[in-house]
């Protein structure tokens, strides 16, 4: 019964993933990543993981999309003189090398993994190792230990695996600090380049602001 719902969702997921791989417009790729997250979260809900679905929907479709778009706005192919952006400024560069080798690698890896699945316990099997070890009665045990806290996921996350979650929080903390360290200072401040070269860059930037002509080429010359 549930297969009528699950199989279309899986096919939509596969379709979205292929679309992301094929599409050249990065704006649209980010958009499809949001769709992919929504679909993945829907499947997670059907697979009895509402907490993960919650997180995936909030992170994947909300924050991740916004961060990708923010990055995209800072990294167009070239910025035109009057500040206008065209939609093809966010396209990938047309690719020259052929996709045969990557496809070959991916196909071989994929078939190796599929060969591996033949030894795996079938979907939903109550005899799968993950259901047997550790002692499956730990849901009941958590009810006892936590005085009836209904959400076992939270109980395990913050209770039994409290150290682990502390570590994860520290990772988020560290990543946040690292982003701030990277992005907080102005673009040309504190460069470790030779002084002359950075002066050239600064001069080129000044010229660019005054000049009406193509600024991208000048900067690139100065950089290289």
């Amino acid at each position, binding site marked *: 019964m549930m297969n009528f719902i699950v199989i279309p969702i899986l096919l939509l997921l596969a379709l979205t993933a292929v679309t992301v*791989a094929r599409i050249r417009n990065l704006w649209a*790729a980010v958009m499809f990543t949001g769709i992919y997250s929504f679909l*993945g979260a829907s499947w997670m809900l059907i697979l009895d993981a509402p907490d993960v679905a919650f997180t995936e929907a909030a992170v994947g479709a909300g924050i991740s999309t916004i961060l990708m778009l923010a990055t995209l706005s800072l990294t167009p192919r070239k910025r035109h003189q009057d500040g206008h952006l065209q939609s093809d400024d966010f396209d990938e560069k047309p690719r020259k090398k052929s996709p045969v080798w990557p496809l070959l690698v991916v196909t071989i890896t994929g078939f190796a993994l599929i060969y591996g699945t033949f030894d795996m316990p079938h979907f939903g099997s109550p005899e799968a190792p993950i259901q047997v070890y550790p002692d499956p009665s730990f849901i009941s045990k958590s009810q006892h230990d936590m005085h009836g806290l209904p959400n076992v996921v939270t109980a395990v996350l913050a209770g039994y695996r409290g150290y682990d979650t502390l570590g994860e929080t520290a990772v988020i903390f560290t990543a946040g600090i690292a982003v701030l360290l990277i*992005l907080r200072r102005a673009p040309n401040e504190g460069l470790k380049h030779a002084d002359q070269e950075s002066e050239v860059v600064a001069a080129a930037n000044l010229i660019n602001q005054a000049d009406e002509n193509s600024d991208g080429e000048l900067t690139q010359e100065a950089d290289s």
Partner: protein
Amino acid sequence: MTMDQFLGLYNYWIVIFLMMTGFYIVIARENLIKTIIGLNIFQTSVFLLYITMGKVTEGTAPIIRNGGGHHEEEHGAAEHVGHAALGREVELGHSVSDVSAIQHASYLENTNPPASPPLDGLADATATSGALEQNTHIVAEYQGVIYSNPLPSVLMLTAIVVGIATTALALALIVRIREEYGTIEEDEIIELDRNS
């Protein structure tokens, strides 16, 4: 290839397909943002793989149905929650009226007669899990309701948030690369490095 095998494994195959799509984007595309998107797809497919493995047939989400933080019950009835209702070997498939006849075998080797568990919400789960009659002695079960494994959920929950934090870090690095090199195409960056 039997039908049984297909129905038991097609989830994994789709997950592997998604994973390989992400892998392909990572190794074939030269745009750095696209690479990060591919990495995200790969990551999500790993989450899906874990979550798939935690699912039990006829199980439900690991949030106790009749829970709700009833404080009196916790203090007054903590004992019977803790000991008597911890049956693992439950003969499911009984009709609802037979619930009191469910045989509990406490994992604490407690031989007290079981207190009758709350009946709400037990009915449908008991009725629908008849298919598991042979296997019920091993699944995670509580008060007659089968729950999927919460452990993969916990692991993936933290992984998602750490994943977005590291993605943000990668994107910040991409912004810096764009500012220094003027491009986010990998081959152009390598070219610029070679010429400098």
